């Protein structure tokens, strides 16, 4: 059983990194939202598995939040925003896909190099989970940097946050995980509501954040 639980946890955490790579190169808006849904579903499986092997039922709450909120509600509302603001176009990736993927690979290597020696004393499950989690966080950051489009920046942020939840559940017996995931959900809900209600139109009419430099240029 010990080996199986390790392997399954590994499988989920590793898939999360892979899906993060898929987010990196996806250049269509609807595709991006679908892949993010997959990201959230894998996260909730991973958290659920951790809840099972750590015998900590409160983590099931986190898993439930991940699947209901991030895999259903957020993608649906992003889909609606997309339709309402009519952003179906392809999205530009700064620096091109090849370079971005290479950078992503470098970041994963970096997180392995940083995390594995640092956590030498911890048990192997938590160790590798943490290295994967850091990879997901860094890939999320990379995605936020390489996108000019606000919705894909938000998706990048959410994938980053999924990495954090993965790290928090991997840390054995960490308290407040549920509270933290709730706090994060509130944050994300605010972002989405912000797009929706406060009509940051200027930003989405033009799709590209770069266009806003016009507004910014005049103000120093």
């Amino acid at each position, binding site marked *: 059983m010990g080996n199986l639980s390790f392997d399954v946890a590994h499988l989920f955490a590793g898939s999360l990194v892979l899906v993060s790579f898929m987010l990196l190169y996806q250049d269509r808006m609807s595709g991006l939202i679908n892949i993010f849904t997959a990201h959230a579903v894998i996260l909730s499986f991973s958290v659920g598995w951790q809840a099972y092997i750590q015998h900590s039922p409160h983590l099931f709450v986190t898993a439930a939040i991940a699947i209901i909120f991030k895999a259903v509600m957020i993608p649906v509302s992003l889909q609606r925003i997309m339709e309402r603001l009519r952003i179906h176009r392809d999205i530009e990736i700064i620096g091109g896909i090849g370079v971005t993927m290479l950078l992503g690979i470098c970041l994963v290597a970096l997180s392995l190099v940083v995390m594995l020696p640092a956590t030498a004393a911890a048990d192997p499950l938590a160790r590798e989970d943490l290295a994967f989690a850091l990879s997901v966080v860094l890939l999320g950051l990379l995605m936020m940097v390489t996108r000019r489009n606000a919705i894909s920046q938000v998706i990048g942020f959410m994938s*980053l946050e999924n990495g954090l939840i993965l790290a928090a559940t991997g840390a054995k*017996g960490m308290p407040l995980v549920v509270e933290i995931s709730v706090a994060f959900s509130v*944050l994300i809900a605010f972002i989405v509501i912000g797009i929706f209600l406060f009509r940051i139109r200027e930003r989405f009419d033009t799709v590209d954040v770069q266009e806003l430099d016009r507004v910014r240029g005049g103000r120093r």
Partner: protein
Amino acid sequence: MNVPALAPVEALLVIPALSALILAFLSGYRLTSYINVISSGMTLVLALGLLFDRPEPGSYLFVDDLNIVFIVLSTFIGFTTSVFSASYIGHEIETGKLKPAYVRFYHAMYQSMMFAMNLALLANNIGLMWVAIEVATLTTVLMVGIYRTPEALEAAWKYFILGSVGIALALFGTILVYMSAEPVLGEGYNAMVWTALMLHGAEFSPRLLNVAFVFLMLGYGTKVGLVPMHAWLPDAHAEGPTPISAVLSGLLLNVALYAVLRFKMLLAANAAAIAPGPLMITLGLASLIFAGFMLYRRDDIKRLFAYSSIEHMGIITFAFGMGGPLANFAGLLHMTMHSLTKSAIFFAVGHIAQVKGTQKIADIRGLTESHPVLGWGLVAGVMAIAGLPPFGVFMSEFLVVSSTFARQPLLAIPLAFGLLVAFGALLLRVIGLAFGEPSDSIGEVEASVVPLFFHLALVLMMGLWLESHIVAWFQNVAGLLG
């Protein structure tokens, strides 16, 4: 029936939280701004009470020598800003810039922010502190965007995204600290409690702590406004209502700095971990020099002082990075002086922008002639913040420079250079603003000058004569910081 007396520590949280709830249901700006002032005043009184009667640390909240400095300072500025805010918001409603419906929201958010900041300072748990700082970010984001102009929304959005990324990095660092503590303190709450962490810091895995500190420094450093993570700060200061600029500079930056300092203390307790000093010194100097040069190119008055806040947070981070009793003392003193002076400046700037109807530096001239009280208040504030004697900022800057000279003379060169660059820029700007032919005013404002001159008087007084109790108190805290 035996009603358990509400302990002052809990009351510091309950009062703002309750007031926020009440304010959310009340309308009418006069009543709500009174409630806002009264509630902030009560919080201040309670915080001052903690100076004399300090409760035992609990499992969630605690008061010690370090956070009491921050609590007293932030509740004080929270109170004076609420007084200023009453007249400022009143004028904004009269001129129709702010819809009455938003005022209810504004006051509720103000108290929620006070609640979150008090919670962040009082939290005895690294996870709770993180949640509190996140809530404080959210409430300030909402207030920055309150004018609903495209610029304000853009500023709020930028603040939101950068602040969230910073907070996310800080959470990763927090998780790593927990993981390093878990083998020693066992699973569960105990491994996240400050008082326990501090006692056993020496036994934690140093490698994990090193990585954790980098994330915490970058994460909370974003909220401190350190270069290169500062981009949100000028926009948030310039586009939001001025009372919010005052609390951002006077309080929120300090709260984030407090988090950094706590983790620095944790690392200092562990002999095998990296010294956190050099990282803080580098970020501090970078902020100081970068902001010093950026001051020259500003043409918006609130942006100007926002960059000045980056500069001063750089000095403070630098001082704490140097460490040692003297530099820490200087850092604490400078933090206090900066918070008092900068919020005073924003009190003046808020009313000035209202009477002139613009924030453009080029369109504001001859203030000392057209509005002597506000004009001279601004001049005094800028002289203080630029580090001229006899104000307290001069003394704390002098202490930072001289303690650096004594230990690392080479580091004192960029420090003094940065200070001079910023000094020149501020002086240049204030001459244009305050003297010469007055520019047109669009109306008069019932300015509340008491908070402004009260702050300046405090800064002046502390520059001339530092009371021995305060010296002893700060020395004690400086010793703790290591």
